[in-house]
């Protein structure tokens, strides 16, 4: 994870997205412990309140959960949830603009499908 103080994305969002990335790439498996608020804050030189805000987003989404007195753990099924979430985001961020632009350029759905398949084989 890298925190970019110049980014338009608020730091607490960068924290939660960074952790999501790390869970997706398997650094933290399901039912494994993630860093504590203090560890996160101390490592990335951010305010503990900011780190807490970022982690709370993940707690609310059911990605991680708190074990009292022990720490934060990745929930079982979190990977699946994250993938679904990211897939939805993928559709919103990439597919919709792609289709929009395709319509503007009069590209047939059939052609687009073929191009996508070509992309997969490359």
């Amino acid at each position: 994870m890298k925190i970019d103080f110049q980014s338009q994305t608020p730091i607490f969002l960068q924290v939660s997205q960074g952790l999501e990335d790390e869970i997706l790439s398997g650094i933290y498996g399901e039912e494994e412990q993630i860093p504590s608020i203090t560890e996160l804050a101390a490592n990335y030189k951010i305010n503990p309140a900011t780190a807490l805000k970022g982690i709370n987003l993940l707690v609310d989404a059911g990605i991680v959960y708190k074990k009292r007195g022990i720490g934060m753990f990745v929930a079982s099924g979190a990977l699946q949830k994250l993938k679904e979430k990211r897939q939805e985001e993928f559709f919103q961020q990439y597919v919709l603009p792609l289709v929009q632009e395709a319509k503007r350029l009069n590209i047939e759905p059939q052609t687009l499908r073929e191009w996508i398949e070509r992309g997969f084989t490359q």
Partner: protein
Amino acid sequence: MKLCCHDLTRKFGDTVALNRVNLCLEEPKICGLLGRNGAGKTTLLRLMTNYIQPNEGSITMDERNLWENEKALQQIFFVTENSYFGEMTAQKLIDFMAGAYPNFDKEQCLAYAKRFELSLNKKYPTLSTGYKSVLRAILALSAHTPFLFLDEPTLGMDAFHRELFYKLLIESYSEAPSCILLSTHLIGEVEGLLENVIILDHGKVLIDESAEKLLSQGYCVSGRISEVDDYCSGKKVIGSNSVGGLKTAAILGEHTAVPDTLDVTGLSLQQLFVQLVGSENPS
């Protein structure tokens, strides 16, 4: 506990160092006290710690006047380059702190000293600038007073010690939160840490806001000069800079739809600070 400044004014001869400053510090938070040299940061800190008296206005702790109020003053620990520790050795100072501040954590302080590799039997004046800062810092981080004022805490520390200091600051703060007022010129190093930002300029409080809110108020656009100028018309531009044909402008305000040809980035606190108090752009 609530520490407040009411219409605080302090003059030195003809110079007005602080001009009707109103400020309140309350809940545990890490606040940045920023300002250019001579903006009044040190004067404010010295006023809030019984070193000097205001010419006008007052400082109160929980509605009681702070001046010569030992009970209230014991809630504050203040370290600066000019802190006076006599000829005491580090070890003696640590022992003395334990007697002077009931919440001082001696074990923690000794552990910190070990991590900084500070030799405890050296007298304070014989330490190097960097190690003086280290000693002041570990005393402060273990004091656990409700208010902690740190004036240029990393002065003269090497890169490793600075990193360690920020790490321990966060650890100590997470363990036992207190209201930490951090006065520094190295904004880039602390901007992630700050929850609140107070900017002094020419003896006045220019900004007193949460860092998140402050940063969300501004953004940067960059692109070709003419396009940036077109976009900026009618907006509050707090600073701009052009290199060759590329122009970057810092804008205050909600960000509206930006043309695709312009790049948008956030403002870092450092950039915002420079734009707000830079003398090249008097606003």
